[in-house]
């Protein structure tokens, strides 16, 4: 039987505020357990939560960047459930009037653009962290709770079930991450749990429209995990359906070590959140002026930026997509081309030697010892013919080590390209004299031999001879 996969994502992103959503405790990651807590985030009786204004601003920013309609009247609700990472026994979240709704995000898969609808974005508080005493969550006799993360602000971005497989889900998640980084509302460090997804997946017979029963996989916090967990789950559900079985609607967790999803049965019997309006928080009313002011403050987003780089700088779609993956990279590129450096060359260097060196040392582009201004200087030296692209690689390595200006390196190391005809002619003559066999071969019609001779000339000039001039002079002498 053939099936279609139907996937929807609920992406949770912690916001990069200084303090928690309803209290003044810090949001810093990695503090000692239970040191970033107060009566409000511990849910002690009689406290009064007050919303952090930055959270609302960041949520609206995300809503606008994801093409949502901002609800000018928004409120909080209590989502009731019992779990020890939730000290109040309810999570303060948003139910019927979330801050943003009805958005979309265009993703690129196999050269095709696909629009993924975004149902809603709501604000809520994160839960605490459980440390289990056993080897797995299922065999622990007790658990330890750290409430430092409790109350850290989150936005939850809920998509419609418009994704049709592991790859689309990964690309969608990558793009969400990229946008949240561009608008600077989240650290997006997936390894720290800043950004994670609950993935809903179901299968239906190809050609039918009725959704099948879904399974939900919680807290996937890497792109690879999303892809692997989905691939596994699709296989599992296919097997069950092929055998005539039924999918059980349930929450499953991804077991990285075993490479499989496993059922997560909790003691909670009925999944009834009994939402009720939060009486301790008053409604949030946003005016058109406030929304437009936030919209005006948005940076140029990846899609617009990509189009600009293609139209104004002549980059290919592929190059433009890579350069705009992160805002840091896009800004590095912009700074470089503002120095009148050739755009295509800058892109090549960024994706080539620069990327290789950054990856090798695990650095982000903002930590690069070669600044955008310096890379532009290097590219300009190539464009002017001062150095060859080959020598530029040596210069770049030196720049990476010392952070020095390329001009200084070229001067000190005597790397200036030889463009003096007389000087090159001398080298050409001596190479011809020293290699009678290849010269004869060439004259006898073996065109390949000229490559060997060029190589010898470049070697003798220590890579400094202008390659175009070498070619011309050599041909003039042999033909």
């Amino acid at each position, binding site marked *: 039987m053939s099936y279609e996969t139907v996937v929807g994502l609920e992406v949770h992103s912690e916001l990069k505020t200084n303090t928690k959503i309803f209290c003044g405790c810090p949001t810093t990651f990695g503090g000692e*357990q239970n040191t*970033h807590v107060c009566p409000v985030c511990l849910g002690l009786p009689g406290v009064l939560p007050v919303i952090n204004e930055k959270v609302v601003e960041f949520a609206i920013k995300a809503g606008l960047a994801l093409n949502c309609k901002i609800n000018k009247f928004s409120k909080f609700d209590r989502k009731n459930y019992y779990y020890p990472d939730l000290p109040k026994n309810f999570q303060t979240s948003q139910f019927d009037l979330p801050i943003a709704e009805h958005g979309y995000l265009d993703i690129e898969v196999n050269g095709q653009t696909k629009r993924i609808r975004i149902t809603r974005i709501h604000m809520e508080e994160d839960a605490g962290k459980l440390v289990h005493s056993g080897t797995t969550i299922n065999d622990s006799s007790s658990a330890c709770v750290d409430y430092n993360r409790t109350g850290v602000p989150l936005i939850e971005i809920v998509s419609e079930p418009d994704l049709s497989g592991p790859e689309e889900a990964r690309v969608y998640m990558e793009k969400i991450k990229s946008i949240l980084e561009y608008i600077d509302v989240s650290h997006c460090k997936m390894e720290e749990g800043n950004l994670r997804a609950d993935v809903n997946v179901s299968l239906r017979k190809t050609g039918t429209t009725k959704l099948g029963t879904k399974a939900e996989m919680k807290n996937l916090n890497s792109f690879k995990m999303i892809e692997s967990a989905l691939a596994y789950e699709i296989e599992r559900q296919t097997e069950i359906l092929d055998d005539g079985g039924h999918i059980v609607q349930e929450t499953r967790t991804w077991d990285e070590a075993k490479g499989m999803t496993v059922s997560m049965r909790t003691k909670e019997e009925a999944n009834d959140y009994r939402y009720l309006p939060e009486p301790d928080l008053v409604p949030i009313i946003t005016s058109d002026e406030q929304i437009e002011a936030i919209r005006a403050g948005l940076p140029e987003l990846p899609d617009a930026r990509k189009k600009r780089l293609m139209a104004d700088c002549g980059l290919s779609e592929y190059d433009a997509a890579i350069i705009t993956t992160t805002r840091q990279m896009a800004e590095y590129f912009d700074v470089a081309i503002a120095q009148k450096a050739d755009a295509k060359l800058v892109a090549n260097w960024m994706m080539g030697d620069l990327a290789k060196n950054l990856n090798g040392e695990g650095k982000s582009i903002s930590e690069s010892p070669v600044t955008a201004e310096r890379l532009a200087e290097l590219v300009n030296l190539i464009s002017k013919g001062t150095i060859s692209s080959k020598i530029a690689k040596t210069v770049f390595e030196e720049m990476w080590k010392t952070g020095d200006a390329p001009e200084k390196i070229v001067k000190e190391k005597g790397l200036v390209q030889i463009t003096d005809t007389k000087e090159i002619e001398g080298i050409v003559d001596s190479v011809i004299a020293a290699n009678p066999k290849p010269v004869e071969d060439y004259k006898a019609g073996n065109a390949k031999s000229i490559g060997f001779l060029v190589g010898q000339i470049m070697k003798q000039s220590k890579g400094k001879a202008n390659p175009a001039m070498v070619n011309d002079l050599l041909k003039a002498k042999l033909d």
Partner: protein
Amino acid sequence: MKITRKDVENVALLSRLEIPEAEVETYTGQLNAFLEYADVLTSLDTKGVEPTAHVLPLKNVFRADEVKPSLDRELALSNAPEQENGYFKVPKIMEG
């Protein structure tokens, strides 16, 4: 009767309330009385009346994003029935 014994038992479970067997009947009756009263309210014509999101005439109460001192950990843990290494200790979570 809208609310049954089973509903009362389920709500009690969700709320972690232990209700003596003898009182289940009492609560079933009381909860039904509440719902009957709510029915009286729903008979009112509320066309054109905005839903009430909050009983107070307030809106937009915000806090600046400024760090305030947190609690001393010892104090934070002082009411915990059990603790371990600065953590709150709780019973087993998952079904075995």
